């Protein structure tokens, strides 16, 4: 009898039965998807990002479909950490899978305070830092687009908890490896790569932006090549595990991320196409490992790293 290959994965001290996280902001509280997907066959749900103060969120429209993807500008609608801890979180505890809290903020202090309170709760297995918010103090520069600011946020959050800390990186940078290294050095246990790519769409009938917030974040298969490269570059820069994401819809997509260097994956937008995607990927991944005679996922992670020989050219030439 052949043994079933293990899909278990460790992110810091967090142990997950499956390497599939449901992306923050894409899977609600799990309740909405519970009738449509088997939550015992996913790794964890990353909850919608929560902030220190309540946020009403952005005006409509918040979503635009684009070729092979979508733009969203939800604007972090959430009731704020007080209300969230008092009136909401206990309800999520009945989910049959681990829950990862997500923290967003507009100052280093925001992140630290919200992280501390969230991580203190038993319902929360780990915390993800969504560093893609603009930093109000430094003229709106996004934390995650600067290695120094990222490090500050991570250090502050790190000091508040021993639970696994995942830092979610922005792709809107020139050198994601630098941000990845900064996050690792500041104490991150894992990286989530990538958050959405900034974009915009215009209503050519009305002559105005399609999103209430003008700009939004692009997700879905359109950004997959961008995400795969980001994971590939980040994986070579750090030793901590990476949660790959950006347009994963199928086993093939998932394999691209594992081979690029991700230890786990996150599925967001694909749940809007078909909530059966995460279950299907787990089943097919198990079969794939078995067929290839691989005992676990570790055998895949980062194995695209062979490359070709490129004797006669300058490095990194994409013209």
């Amino acid at each position, binding site marked *: 009898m052949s043994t079933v290959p293990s899909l278990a994965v460790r992110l810091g001290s967090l142990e997950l039965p499956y390497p599939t996280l449901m992306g923050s*902001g894409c899977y*609600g509280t799990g309740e909405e998807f519970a009738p449509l997907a088997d939550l015992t066959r996913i790794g964890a749900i990353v909850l919608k990002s929560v902030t220190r103060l309540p946020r009403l969120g952005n005006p*409509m429209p918040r*979503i635009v*479909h684009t070729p092979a993807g*979508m733009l969203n500008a939800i604007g972090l609608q959430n009731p704020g950490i007080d209300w969230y801890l008092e009136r909401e979180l206990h309800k999520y505890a009945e989910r049959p899978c681990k829950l990862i809290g997500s923290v967003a903020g507009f100052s280093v202090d925001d992140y630290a305070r919200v992280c501390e309170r969230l991580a203190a709760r038993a319902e929360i297995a780990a915390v993800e830092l969504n560093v893609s918010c603009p930093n109000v103090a430094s003229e709106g520069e996004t934390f995650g687009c600067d290695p120094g600011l990222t490090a500050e946020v991570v250090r502050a959050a790190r000091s508040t908890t021993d639970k696994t800390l995942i830092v979610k990186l922005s792709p809107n940078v020139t050198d994601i490896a630098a941000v990845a290294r900064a996050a690792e050095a500041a104490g991150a246990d894992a990286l989530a790569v990538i958050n959405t790519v900034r974009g915009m769409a215009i209503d050519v009938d009305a002559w105005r932006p399609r999103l209430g917030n003008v700009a939004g974040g692009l997700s879905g298969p359109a950004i997959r090549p961008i995400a795969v490269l980001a994971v590939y570059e980040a994986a070579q820069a750090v030793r901590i595990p990476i949660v790959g994401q950006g347009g994963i819809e199928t086993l093939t997509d998932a394999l691209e991320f594992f081979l690029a260097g991700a230890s786990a994956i996150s599925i967001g937008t694909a*749940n*809007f*196409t078909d*909530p059966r995607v995460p279950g299907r990927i787990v089943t097919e991944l198990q079969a794939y490992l078995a067929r290839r005679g691989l005992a676990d996922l570790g055998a895949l992670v980062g194995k695209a790293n062979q490359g070709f020989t490129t004797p006669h050219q300058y490095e990194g030439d994409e013209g």
Partner: protein
Amino acid sequence: MATIDTRVHATTVSERRELGPGVVLLTLDAAELANATRPGQYVMAIPPSGETAATALAVYETQGKLASLLFFTTGKRTRELAALHSGDRLDLIGPLGNGFDCSGDARDVAIVAGGVGIASVLLCAQRLVRLGSRVRLFYGARTAELLIESQRFADAGCELVETTDDGTRGAPGFVTDALERAPRPQAIYACGPTPMLRRVAQIANASGVRAQLSLEETFGCGIGGCWGCVVPLVRASVQAPSFPPAQAVNGDFVYARICREGPVFWAHELRW
């Protein structure tokens, strides 16, 4: 709870008909869905190609084990659905949303439908007629050939008031003009483009008639998971999601999810 029967249904196309230019009626073999759906509910149609984003479509009609969808091919996703043929498989999530409240005691009811909004109100019309109400359908479209299915509503026992923007059939002008001219109903049910619904709300609020509006917005998940499809509601309304009190955030409204708290909202509780 509204979505208790929500499931993924594997259905089969039993008939495909074109009702007008770019207007398709798909009848599906979908016993459980047909059985569970109430007036004003919708489904998310999973694209057969697996390519980006399910599409929100009202359940137009149910009959025995059949459920039908009626849609206009406006973009990539509806084009893909329009390419389905009898015998093809189509997976759907549903039924979704709260649907219309047809339990009231209004004896004289107006249903207002604009364009594709007609797809959301047939079940509602049938139910209201069955409950003994007089049902007037105010139905507007851009042009005559897009005024589809009127006969279907007449057969169901509705009185018809038709309008077209270009005057090619019925009264020329907007359907809301016709509504305004008509004797005041005791209740209004409406579905159509947002400008039409805003006008219906004004008319209803001004005349003190309670109106239920089925709203539309670009959906992400369609099941309440992404907060992509919101509409501002008066804080105190029943459908408003729980949220910290007003002093904590500026604004006297809260965003509710059209897909989850709606798609049907009371006109007087909207803050748009």
